[in-house]
């Protein structure tokens, strides 16, 4: 279960309204490499992981991704909180405004709605962990793309933080891969599916 703590993992305090920036950053809420997708991916994959410690790691990283989703939403909210009807016409934000006003709705920067098709839960430890490693790299790319085009230091600081987390998570998933390999037959890691053909697993 989860318990709420009334603070963000990384404080967000933005004073300047900017719907254009909000329209770009919302991709990390509901986009293909966004935080909602990340948390749902890890929290879905953990149940069938054959190595207990890897299931624990997926729970902790999946939980942190929910914190990141909240940071992203706080950024979008603060960037549009005092929006005027004139500013709502900003190219890129205008279409979002018509459908959602300044409410938060998970979508990609290009307007594609959030969908679970953005991630996979394959029931195969290697397939899932490789997906997780790739997911962290893709999210890192998005944060770097955002950092190149956004100038407001109040927005850049949390983006820098979130980018750094992708690298740490990549390292931890790599370590999870090593821990999984350790439980398998080193001469052929592909002899069976560790999540399904459990009778072959090392005790």
């Amino acid at each position, binding site marked *: 279960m989860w*318990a*709420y*703590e*009334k*603070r*963000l*993992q*990384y*404080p*967000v*305090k933005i004073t300047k309204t900017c719907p254009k920036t909000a329209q770009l950053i919302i991709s990390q809420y509901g986009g293909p490499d966004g935080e909602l997708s990340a948390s749902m991916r890890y929290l879905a994959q953990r149940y069938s992981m054959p190595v207990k*410690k890897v299931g*624990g*790691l997926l729970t*902790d*990283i999946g939980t*942190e991704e929910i*914190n990141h989703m*909240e940071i992203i*939403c*706080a950024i979008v*909210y*603060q960037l549009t*909180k005092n929006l005027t009807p004139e500013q709502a016409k900003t190219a890129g934000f205008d279409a979002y405004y018509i459908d959602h006003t300044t409410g938060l709705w998970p979508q990609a920067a290009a307007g594609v709605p959030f969908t679970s098709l953005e991630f996979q839960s394959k029931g195969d430890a290697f397939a899932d962990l*490789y997906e997780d*490693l790739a997911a962290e790299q893709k999210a890192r790319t998005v944060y*770097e793309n955002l*950092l*190149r085009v956004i100038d407001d*230091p109040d927005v*850049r*600081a949390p*983006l*820098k*933080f*979130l*980018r*750094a*987390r992708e*690298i*740490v*998570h990549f*390292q*931890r*998933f*790599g*370590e*999870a*891969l*090593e*821990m999984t*390999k*350790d439980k398998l037959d*080193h001469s052929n*890691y*592909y002899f069976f599916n560790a999540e399904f053909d459990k009778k072959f697993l090392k005790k």
Partner: protein
Amino acid sequence: MKTQTNCQCSAETLAMASVPMQEWCEPYDLATAIYSGTLFPCLNMNFFDAEDIPCPFCNKPALTKAAEQEKALIEICKVGFAINDLTLYLDTHPDCQNGINLMKDLLQQRLDALAEFAKKYYPLTQLSIVTGTPEAKDYEWDEGPLPWDPFGECILAK
């Protein structure tokens, strides 16, 4: 002191990726850690276009009551983040004594800071209602600003 995990990491083989296990490295101070997004200098791989971002957590004098409250909240974020990062490290290095010692120290700091914050301002967790203000008759869960709206309702020191 034992700093390595038990993982008998296998030799590299064909058709399988390998990532070396992280070795313990002397952690950053808590402000540098949250600013860098990691407690560990060896995992801090900066991006060229993020080098100029000033650290929002460097020590600024808190001149007003509101600034004092904000500073207290940032202290909790700093300890909280160090715990978050160390949690993941210990998930894959459960036997690292350096990590375990630091975690126990940080958890105690966090417990004390949450109680202190609840006593002075408002509770961040439900448990800190009873640890921070055990004598209070009212239930304070709705006090304080919502996390995403720091400019909203601002409750100053009790």
